[in-house]
């Protein structure tokens, strides 16, 4: 099963500083600038993931008021803190490239108060299936209401089940990004997307283990 693939030396720019103590003087060759910093798929991914993360933050914030067990509460705290910071990271990444950086709040109607109807969010990258504003793995408003109505063990169970699905959706978004020609190669984006893939995979395993420790209460209440 030899996977090695060897090749002769290719064109490598090698700069030699002959006894140069000051580095600035060492090189005059310009670096081959990356042809392009990002692709449309990169932008779609970042913009879409902001919304995706925003829902995870909302779900996680509920732990404190919904009687989550200590374990789930810790998990929620971590997810809320982590994904909130990642929203900042994604917004910064987009803004640094003068791209539209979605603010989840812009999705709300301009006037305050509860939202009364569906406002289709025509964001790039959104799954335009049965639920216009939902990207892969996101909970539907129904599911969100059920989660919000739950308490204690039931909240834990719905949260874990829902967040596993939510994370799996994020993995699908990463997969879609890398399946796109040239997608995900900008360094920070590559690192970020790879982190999401590895980190959320690990978190899914953790949540599945936690799910198994929950008391099995066949809930009858609706």
């Amino acid at each position, binding site marked *: 099963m030899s*996977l*090695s*693939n*060897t*090749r002769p030396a290719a064109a*490598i720019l090698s*700069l030699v*500083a002959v006894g140069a103590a000051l580095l*600035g003087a*060492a090189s005059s060759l310009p*670096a081959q600038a*990356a042809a392009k910093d990002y692709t449309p798929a990169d932008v779609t991914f970042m913009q879409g993931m902001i919304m995706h993360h*925003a829902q995870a933050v*909302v779900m996680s*914030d*509920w*732990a*404190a008021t919904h009687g989550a*067990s200590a*374990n789930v509460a*810790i998990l929620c705290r*971590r997810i809320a803190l982590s994904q909130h910071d*990642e929203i*900042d990271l994604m917004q*910064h990444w987009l803004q640094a490239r003068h791209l539209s950086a979605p*603010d989840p*709040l812009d999705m709300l109607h301009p006037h305050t108060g*509860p*939202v009364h109807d*569906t406002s289709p969010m025509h964001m790039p990258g959104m799954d335009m299936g049965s639920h216009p*504003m939902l990207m892969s793995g996101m909970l*539907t408003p129904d599911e969100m*209401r*059920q989660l*919000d*109505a*739950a*308490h*204690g*063990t*039931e909240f*834990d169970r*719905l949260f874990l*089940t829902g967040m596993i699905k939510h994370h799996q959706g994020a993995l699908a978004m990463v997969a879609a990004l890398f399946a796109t*020609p*040239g997608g995900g190669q900008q*360094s*920070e984006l590559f*690192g970020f997307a790879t982190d999401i*893939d*590895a980190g959320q995979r690990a978190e*899914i*395993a953790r949540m*599945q283990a936690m799910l198994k*420790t*929950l*008391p099995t209460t066949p*809930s009858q*209440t*609706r």
Partner: protein
Amino acid sequence: MTPSSPTGPRLRASLQALFLAAAPLVLASACSKAAPPASTPPVAQADTTDPRSHLKAGLYDAGVASKGLDLVAHQNKPDVFHPNEPGGLTYANSDLAFGGHYVYQGNFSGIQIWDVADPAKPTLTSATVCFTEQGDVSVYGHLLFVSAENTGSRLDCGTEGIKDTVSKERMLGIRIFDISNPQHPRQVADVQTCRGSHTHTLVPDPKDKGVVYVYVSGLARVRSKAEMASCEMGDITDPNSALFRIEVIRVPLAHPEQAKIVSSPRIFDSLTKAPTHGLAYADTANGAGRRGGRGGRFGPQIPPNSSAADSAHIEELFGKLLAAARSDAATFKVMSDSLEKMGVPVRIPPPMPQGLGGPSQCHDITVYPDAGLAGGACSGYGLLLNIKDPLHPVRIQAVADSNFAFWHSATFSNDASKMLFTDEWGGGTQAKCRATDPLDWGADAIFTIKGDQLTRTAYYKIPDAQTVNENCVAHNGGLVPVPGRDIMVQGWYQGGISVFDFTDPAHPKEIAYFDRGPNDSTKLVIGGFWAGYYYNGYIYGSEIARGLDVFKLTPTADLTQNEIDAAALVHFDRYNPQDQPKLVWPAAFPVARAYLDQLVRDNGLPADRTTAVKTALDDAEKLSGAKRADALKTLGAQLDKDAATATDAAKVRLLAGVVNDMSKQP
């Protein structure tokens, strides 16, 4: 500057409304709770009064705070890596390796070779542009190994990326350079792997001096089979899956072009369930008390014009689907298909294929060949591996920790009785050392090793609060060879360099630090110390944005000049931090005095005795030949006696051992 973000309670309340209200229907009263405060405050808080917390920002003129560390040299990145445009990771400096009087510094876009014959005046020998990410480096003899992981990494080292989803131009794995002439590194081999190389670890063959192995840890997704036929993405039951394993490359030093993968140890086998640390539900108050609560569950969405019988049937199918959702994929599929046929959407995830959600990859492996051990930081686990047969590492133990987001890397104490794992919470690009961030998240976790058991004893995180504009979390480091103590130096990105003592594994303590202010005062510009390592008397820091730094330890109450001098006696011809070398100290006066200083500091021996021993050592040093040997022999005998009654008998014995050994030197 900063975009409005969903942090504040008001904003979060609005967000709730967004996700709850996209469908018409009742906004149940239960939904209108005020947004909760994020959650309970951390147990311990970072210190906002530390001098590191309020430093002036600036790429090259930032404020500096330090204790016990003197910056003796700094060099900016060479121009090819854009030293004045730190805006991203594309030209980020990464890890370091050391060989002779050269420091090899990785960069996401290439490699730099620094001549540190005079560590106070590092000079650039060469800078080679070759886009790889992360570009972590190791050196062995005339070969330099570089990790390549970015899907845009090219065989020809170009920086233009790769546009095709399947491409023969892609290089994911280990690049090997011949550095016989450090002014002209020469690309001699590329070993392709299915998931690329995030990091790698050199393991010299214990018997054959002409062979080194490379353990490859890859985080990236499994590449397309069309690109590399052997790359299967199966679950843990699939022996050909490129997941759930590490790769071992065998490199004949004389023929690097023959380097190839020779084994793929499946170190995750039978590790499907996360051991829970403090996570067992039944152990919590909630677990015993709260059941049922206010109800609510995922119910089926019954189509509006369904008959009563259909509705009942749907309910029944849905019940079975829920029951199967944990582990019975087959039943789940049947129920799910039936429901879909009846027009009922199923939005519950199918059970994960067995093991696919479990740990499937390592971030980093540190081997400690002298102890026959390796520490693997792998997804949600820290692994302890037996590597006595380096081709076939075997898992001894696995630990999980709910405070850890992502296990990043491992370091052993020199006697292999302790190990330290780092948690790279946030991936290193985010600010995780703010006053509000828990001190046990994004930290080091210290474990004791007893047989095959790992027991966590403490966390260590830099004690000061950093700003929101500084990416900061535990990152790469290694041991500082002070005899008699376990001391580590570590890079914390823009949190600076921290040197700390974990001799007492339950009470790690910082003893030195160096920190600059943020790169930018208005926004987070990624930078800081990728790593800090001790090599032959100096500490080298790889600064992501700013270049290379060289430090010397200076004496403080927590570290004496004798201890610093004793550390400098440990000399290596080569140092790859992921291939942890055994520290051995010569029998020499600085080593004896280092032990003596520790006995004084910790009251391990009565003061009158430590004073007498100090005088005896000073006197002996002034003598030579047989007279010195006699004086040392006498002192050694006295110390052997002291050990019987000393508070710290073990340390006195170490001291006696050095003195006795010195007495036998010609």
